[in-house]
C-alpha cells in the first residue's frame, strides 16, 4: 500500500455518529428498501438553524434565514423547516409548489434563479418575494401582475459585478444579477413600476469561498441601498445569499497530509493516489506543479454559522472601517441569508451495499463494487474527498466502534480500495482516488457516506440504465431509539418526543 494509510475521516456530530452506531437498523433498511438508500435527519436542520440565529443575535441583527431548497429535494427536511421560523428560497416552479405544500407561508419564501412565466405567475399570485436578476425580468413581472390583476409583489434586486476601491478584486463572472454600474436604469424601472412592485431590498450571491469578495459585495449593496433611499424608495433588507461552506473532515492533519501526498504523487515522487493517475486539476510540467487543485476545501475550521460571523465582523474598508454587521444594524437593514449546504451540515447520509471485493493480479488497491451509481453519491462531483464508514454485515467480524475495524478475520487491518459504481461504464467511479479503509469490506457490508444531504444526495441522481435512484427515509431519535419513516410520510406531527 506504500506507507501509512491516508485516511480522510468524516466529521461526525452526535446524531450521525449515533445513527451509524445502529448497524442493525441500517442493514434492515437497506435490505428492505434497497441500495443506495438516503437517510435524512430533520431535527439536525432545526439545530443548524439555531446556530445561524445565534449569529444574528450576537450582532443584534434581525432578518430571515432562507434554506436554499435546491441543496436537497427531501420533503421531510422541508416540512421540519416549516415547523421552525425559517424561510426557504426556491429556484423553480416545482420547488415553489413543494415549499407552499410543506407549510411555508408566502412571507417566508423567496423565489430566485432563472424563472419561466409559470414560476413568476405562481410567485406573484401567492405573494412570495421575487429576487429579480435583470431589468427585463422586472418588466416581465410587472406586465404579468397588471395583466392578471395580481396583488402588489415584493421584489429584491440581485446585483453583481461589485467593485472594490483601491484594490481591484477579480471575481468570477456570474450570469446572474445586474452589474452594479448598471443599477441606475434598474432603479428607474423600479420607480416606474411602483404601482405594482414594492422594493424590499437588494441581493447578491457570489460563488466564492473568499470573505473579502463577499465583503466587497455587501459594501456595494449598502451603497446601492443608499441610492434607493435617496430616490425616496424604502428598502429594508440585504440578501447576501449563502456559500458559507461545510467542514467535512474530522481532522485537519489528515487533510494536510493527504493533499501534500497528492501533490507528491502528481510530481511522481510517490506512488499514485488516484485511479489512472488523475490529478484533480494538478499536473506535472518538468518537475514543477502546475494547475489548480480542483477540490472542495474539505477541512474548513471556519464554515457555516462561523463563516457568517466572520463575514459580519469584517471591517467595511470603504465605509469607515466599521464591521459590516454594525453598518447593517445602524442603517436599520434586515439581513437575509440563503445557506443551503451549511444548513444541511450533518443532516443525512447515503448507504451503499458492497457487491464485490476483488484483488488485482498486479496487486495494488482492491476493487470494490457498490450497489450505487457515482451520481447517487456525488461527493466527487463536488470535489469533496471523504472516506465512507464501513458498517459490517456481521457485527462479530468487526469492532463495535464506528469506522474502526478490529475484527479477527484475515482481512483485518487497513486496506486501499478503489470504489466502483454499478453502471456498465468505465467512468462510473464512486471515487477517483484510492480510498483507505480501516478494514477490508466484505460483500454484504454497507459503506455509509456521511454528510451527503447538501448537494451530494439527489442533486445529480438519475435513473440511467434502468437502475433505481436511491429511496429516501427520514430518521429521528426517541430517547435512545432511532425511528424512521419514508421521506414523504414525514410531517412534524409524526415523531413523538424528541425535539417536538
Amino acid at each position, binding site marked *: 500500500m506504500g506507507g501509512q494509510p491516508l485516511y480522510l475521516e468524516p466529521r461526525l456530530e452526535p446524531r450521525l455518529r449515533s445513527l451509524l452506531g445502529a448497524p442493525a437498523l441500517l442493514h434492515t433498511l437497506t435490505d428492505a428498501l434497497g441500495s443506495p438508500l438516503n437517510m435524512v435527519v430533520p431535527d439536525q436542520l432545526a439545530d443548524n438553524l439555531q446556530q445561524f440565529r445565534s449569529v444574528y443575535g450576537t450582532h443584534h441583527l434581525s432578518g430571515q434565514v432562507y434554506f436554499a431548497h435546491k441543496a436537497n429535494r427531501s420533503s421531510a427536511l422541508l416540512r421540519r423547516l416549516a415547523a421552525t421560523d425559517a424561510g426557504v428560497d426556491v429556484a423553480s416552479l416545482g420547488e415553489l409548489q413543494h415549499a407552499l405544500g410543506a407549510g411555508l407561508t408566502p412571507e417566508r419564501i423567496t423565489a430566485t434563479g432563472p424563472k419561466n412565466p409559470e414560476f413568476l405567475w405562481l410567485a406573484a399570485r401567492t405573494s412570495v418575494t421575487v429576487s429579480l436578476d435583470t431589468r427585463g425580468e422586472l418588466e416581465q413581472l410587472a406586465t404579468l401582475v397588471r395583466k392578471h390583476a395580481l396583488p402588489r409583489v415584493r421584489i429584491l434586486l440581485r446585483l453583481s459585478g461589485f467593485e472594490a476601491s483601491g*484594490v481591484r478584486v477579480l471575481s468570477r463572472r456570474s450570469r446572474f444579477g445586474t452589474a452594479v454600474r448598471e443599477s441606475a436604469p434598474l432603479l428607474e424601472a423600479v420607480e416606474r413600476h411602483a404601482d405594482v412592485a414594492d422594493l424590499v431590498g437588494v441581493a447578491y450571491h457570489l460563488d466564492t*469561498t473568499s470573505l473579502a469578495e463577499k465583503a466587497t459585495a455587501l459594501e456595494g449593496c449598502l451603497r446601492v441601498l443608499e441610492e434607493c433611499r435617496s430616490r425616496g424608495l424604502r428598502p429594508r433588507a440585504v440578501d447576501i445569499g449563502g456559500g458559507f*461552506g461545510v467542514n467535512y473532515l474530522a481532522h485537519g492533519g489528515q487533510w494536510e497530509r493527504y493533499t501534500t501526498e497528492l501533490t507528491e504523487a502528481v510530481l511522481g515522487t510517490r506512488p499514485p493516489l488516484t485511479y489512472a493517475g488523475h490529478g484533480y486539476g494538478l499536473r506535472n510540467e518538468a518537475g514543477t506543479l502546475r494547475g489548480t487543485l480542483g477540490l472542495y476545501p474539505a477541512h474548513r475550521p471556519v464554515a457555516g454559522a462561523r463563516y457568517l460571523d466572520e463575514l459580519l465582523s469584517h471591517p467595511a474598508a470603504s465605509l469607515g472601517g466599521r464591521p459590516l454587521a454594525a453598518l447593517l444594524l*445602524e442603517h436599520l437593514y434586515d439581513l437575509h441569508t440563503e445557506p443551503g449546504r451549511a444548513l444541511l451540515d450533518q443532516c443525512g447520509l447515503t448507504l451503499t451495499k458492497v457487491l464485490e471485493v476483488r484483488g488485482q493480479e498486479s496487486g495494488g488497491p482492491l476493487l470494490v463494487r457498490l450497489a450505487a451509481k457515482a451520481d447517487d453519491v456525488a461527493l466527487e462531483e463536488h470535489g469533496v474527498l471523504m472516506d465512507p464508514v464501513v458498517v459490517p454485515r456481521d457485527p462479530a467480524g468487526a469492532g463495535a466502534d464506528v469506522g474502526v475495524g478490529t475484527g479477527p478475520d484475515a482481512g483485518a487491518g487497513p486496506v486501499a480500495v478503489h470504489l466502483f459504481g454499478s453502471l456498465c461504464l468505465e467512468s462510473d467511479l464512486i471515487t477517483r482516488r484510492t480510498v483507505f479503509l480501516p478494514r477490508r469490506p466484505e460483500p454484504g457490508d454497507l459503506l455509509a457516506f456521511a454528510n451527503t444531504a447538501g*448537494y451530494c444526495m439527489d442533486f445529480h441522481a438519475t435513473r440511467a440504465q434502468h437502475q433505481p435512484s436511491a429511496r429516501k427515509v427520514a430518521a429521528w431519535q426517541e430517547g435512545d431509539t432511532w425511528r424512521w419513516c419514508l421521506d414523504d410520510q414525514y410531517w412534524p406531527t409524526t415523531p413523538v418526543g424528541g425535539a417536538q
Partner: protein
Amino acid sequence: MRYDSITDAIGNTPLVRIDPAVHGLRNIDLYAKLELLNPFGSVKDRAAWNMARPHLSAAAEGAGQVVELSSGNTAKALAVLAGIHGLTFKSVTNRMRIPEIKDLLLLLGAEIEELPGQSECLDPTATDDPLTLFHRTLSEPDSTYLHTDQYFNPRNTEAHFTGTGPEIVKDLDGRAPDWFIACVGTAGSSTGVARALREHDPAVRVAGLVAAKSDFIPGIRTIDEAHEVGLFDPGTYDTIESVSADEAIEGMLTLNRRCGILAGPTGGAAYFGAVRQLRAFDEELADGEPAERQSAVFIVCDRVESYLSYVRQRRPDLFGRPRRRNSPADLSDAELRTAPAIGVADAQAWIATGGPLVVDLRSSYAYAALHIDGSVNIVDELFEELLHGGLPFSRNRPVLLACPVGEKSARYAALLTRMGHPDVRSLTGGIIAWRDAGAPLVRD
C-alpha cells in the same frame, strides 16, 4: 558613500553576528545577513532589479506595464523601479493578506488585482484557473507587459548567485559558512546563495524553511506551494523543515528586542528555524573534542513595520495598553442594569418639552441616511475618546443617547451618570425601536 542612483544602493548589506548570549549556541557563530537594509526594504530588491534591468528601457519606449505575481516585497521593489523608469506596475495575487503592504503599494502607484477565491460550488467543467488566464493575457500578441516572472526567472536566482552569496563569503574572510538557513519563497535567494557557497565549499549544509501547512507566514510558502515554484529544486536543501506562525513571531521578537534587528516575521522564522536546526548539532560539537568553531548564516528578508496588523491579530498581548479612565469597560453589571433609559413614546414627549441634546452614536454613513430630527452625530468610537477626557456636555443640558438597539447607548448612559451627569438617558430599543414605533426619521 555617494551614489548616482538609488539602485546603486541595492546589495552589499551587512552581515551581523548574533550575540551568543541570545541564541545560546556554544560552538557555532550565527550571522544575520541584513537584507532588510536594501533601499526598498527587502531581499527582493536584488531580484527585482536584476530581472527588470535589461528590459526597462525598451518597455519605457513602448509605454508598457511591469506585471508580477507578488504579494509583497517583489511588488514593492518593482513598483519603485517601474516608477523611476516612467512605467506603471501591476501586481496580480491572491496572497496579499497584509493590509499595510497593500496600502504601501497603492501609495507607490501600483495597481493591484486580486484573483478570485476558490469556488464554493465546484464546477467540474471549468477549465481555466485564474493563473492560466493571467498567463494567457500576458502572451497575447499585442501585449506590452513586462512580466518579470519571479517564480521561474533564472535572473532571480542569479542575483543571489552573483551578489548575496559572494558577499557572505567576503564578509567571512573568504570562507563559506558551515550552514546556510533560508526561508523558501520564490526559492531565488536560497538557491542562488546555496550555489555560490557550495562553489566555494561543497560541504556547506543548506536548510530550507517552509511554513506549516495550516499557517500563514508572509513571504514563505508551504511545502506544497513550493512545488509550484519553477526555481524550487528539493535537491538544493539538505533538510526542509517547517516553521509555524507563532514560532516566526517568537523569532522576530528576539531579533527585534534583543538584537536590535528590526526584522519582520520572515526573518523571525529564519532565526527561529536556524537556532532550532543548529542546537542539536551544537550539542554534538560540545560533546566531542574541542572543535574548531563553526559558522552559520541566515537571511533577514525584510522589516517589521509592515506587519503590525499581522502580529496584532496573532499576538494581541504584545499591544497591551494601559487602561484609560472613563472607559465603558469599567462599568459593573449593576451600573449597566440601572442605566437610565427612556422608551420611544416618552422620548418623543421629552424631546418636545425638555429639549434634550439627542446624540446619535451610529456611523456617519448610517446617520446621514436616516436619523432623529435635530440630533447630532458623534460616532461611538469618537465618543469614547471624548469621555476619556471628561464630560463633553454641560451638566445643565439633558442628553438622550441613541444607538441601533439601545445596548451601546445604555453603556454610555451609565458611564455619563457615573461621571456626574444628572440627566442622561438611553433610548430603549434604539433607532430600530424608534423606526418600528413609526416615529419620524429624516434625511437632511
